[in-house]
């Protein structure tokens, strides 16, 4: 009997600690965006309070992009969703959480900043990796996350396919052959971008990590530029990071105004500057000009240009039994 008060003491202690704020927003995002939103959220909070007098608390949830989207479908009450490819937000539209034309509600198809797929190699580039063709050489180990589960991996796959298609004399058959040979050089498929980075950096597996520019630069920053070099291919895919308001949630919570302001400020000079500082390629021309030195110009193509649309690319290449499954099964 004497145990009872002891057991419930922690409950009582916890009851009074919930922080109070006027509005709370939940931003459900993918794995590697934490650094950006950590810098961006205070910026937004100050600006919003100065303008409206309302205090906003922004909560973050990060994880593999498709898993995060599924959580929102499953009831995770996200006011805004910030992903690295449009299909994850289309999924929410299919489930009626937001309208199908969500992309047209904000500038640039709701994409505030981009990244591109680049190569991270070990210092001095011992395997002399300069472009896509070097990745399919025998004896080169390439680290790529699983395109079935990771947006990062999908961009790599589509980049490899698209650039092969655009070589002189390129064809679907040649692109397929190129991508098959590339994945033959992949010793392990990690489930997400961050896991692939850990494999390359911590476990020292592989000669080259193919990942987003902002992730590669983050690695260089965290682990020192002494250990790695970033290699820019001649042609790459433009990784578009779309954002959207989740209508069903904001209407229920009454947070539409704050959530909309939160997303729109991403296009402001301040928001774009934070993006550039986190090695995300800004849309704003002035900010882009100011940070031009840190983003070497690379020719890029959009997924929609080469594959029709994200939905079409998903269906042809990454659905069960799609091209990726056929290629990888043969390995």
């Amino acid at each position: 009997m004497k145990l009872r008060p002891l057991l419930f003491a922690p409950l009582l202690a916890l009851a009074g600690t919930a922080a109070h704020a006027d509005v709370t927003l939940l931003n459900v995002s993918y794995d590697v965006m934490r650094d950006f939103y950590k810098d961006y959220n205070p910026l937004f909070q100050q600006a919003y309070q100065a303008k409206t007098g309302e205090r906003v608390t922004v909560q973050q949830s990060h994880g593999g992009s498709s898993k995060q989207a599924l959580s929102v479908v499953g009831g995770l009450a996200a006011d805004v969703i910030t992903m690295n490819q449009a299909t994850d937000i289309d999924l929410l539209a299919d489930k009626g959480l937001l309208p199908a034309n969500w992309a047209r509600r904000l500038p640039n198809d709701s994409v505030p900043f981009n990244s591109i797929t680049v190569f991270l190699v070990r210092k001095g580039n011992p395997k002399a990796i300069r472009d896509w063709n070097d990745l399919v050489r025998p004896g080169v180990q390439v680290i790529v996350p699983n395109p079935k589960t990771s947006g990062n991996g999908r961009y790599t796959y589509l980049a490899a396919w698209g650039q092969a298609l655009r070589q002189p004399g390129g064809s679907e058959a040649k692109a397929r052959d190129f991508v098959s040979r590339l994945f033959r050089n992949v010793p392990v498929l990690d489930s997400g971008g961050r896991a692939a980075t850990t494999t390359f950096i911590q476990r020292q597996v592989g000669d080259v990590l193919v990942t987003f520019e902002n992730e590669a630069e983050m690695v260089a920053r965290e682990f020192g530029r002494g250990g790695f070099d970033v290699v820019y291919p001649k042609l790459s895919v433009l990784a578009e990071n779309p954002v959207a308001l989740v209508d069903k949630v904001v209407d229920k919570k009454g947070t539409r105004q704050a959530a909309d302001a939160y997303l729109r400020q991403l296009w402001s000079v301040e928001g774009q500057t934070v993006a550039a500082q986190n090695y995300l390629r800004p849309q704003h021309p002035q900010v882009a000009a100011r940070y031009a030195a840190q983003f070497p110009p690379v020719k890029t193509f959009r997924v929609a240009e080469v594959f029709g649309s994200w939905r079409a690319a998903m269906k042809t290449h990454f659905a069960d039994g799609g091209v990726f499954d056929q290629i990888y099964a043969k390995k």
Partner: protein
Amino acid sequence: MSDVSSRATAEAAWVRVALTTLALAFVALFLLVPLAAVFWEAFSKGWQLYVDSLTEPEAWSAIKLTLLTAAFAVPLNLVFGVAAAWAIARFEFRGKSFLVTLIDLPFSVSPVVAGLMYMLLFGAQGWLGPWLAEHDVKIVFAVPGIVLATVFVTFPFVARELIPLMQAQGADEEQAAMVLGASGWQTFWRVTLPNVKWGLLYGVILTNARAMGEFGAVSVVSGHIRGETNTIPLHVEILYNEYNFVGAFACASLLAFLALLTLVVKSLVEWKIARAQAASLNRTREARLASA
């Protein structure tokens, strides 16, 4: 006697030394070194950073949520476990073996599946999801879901600990109490409970250890909202994936420390159990001698 036993263990000296060394090396390599590594990494950049990583708001909220979850899971499973063990050890009824299987279910079901079960039931697309949303009840991606998943995973510990103990003790003392005119509750409080108290405490300790350490089931239903629905194990994973190794291992060391504390308490309890059992054995022996 002593001759036989000494002959049985009379291996050559080098065999004994080699086997002992091997066993100790194994323990060191697989238990002590990793444990030491956790603390080593946690303190690798000094005390200050260690304390900071435990007191920053997100870590602090993870610690509070973990304690809160355990504060729900442990008492609930204490009551369930005692009731189930009492029913199973003291009564015969139809479906008893089915009930025993049911109690073991959480041990055999993978924690991830346990989490997904709750998603299927309470998720927005799940069976009860629409009704819950209509009535503004949050289960998954909130504290209730985390508590439910933890309660499920830790359900068997208390009952599994008590059933064999109560079966071994038998119902003699309780029957005696009844014959002497004690009511059901009196019998429970004065006879049943005191007899199993150390076993019960042991079950509670195991429940608590698992409740604080559970990852899989909680990961599915948590939604990973920082400062809101992250428990310590989830927080450790996140920090690790963000290359915040000091923070990750600081939180990991806290969990490890709680586990070590649990083990110390557990050893104390085991020692008490052994003493209590020896004492009760002596008592019965004396009683038999007196009656003879």
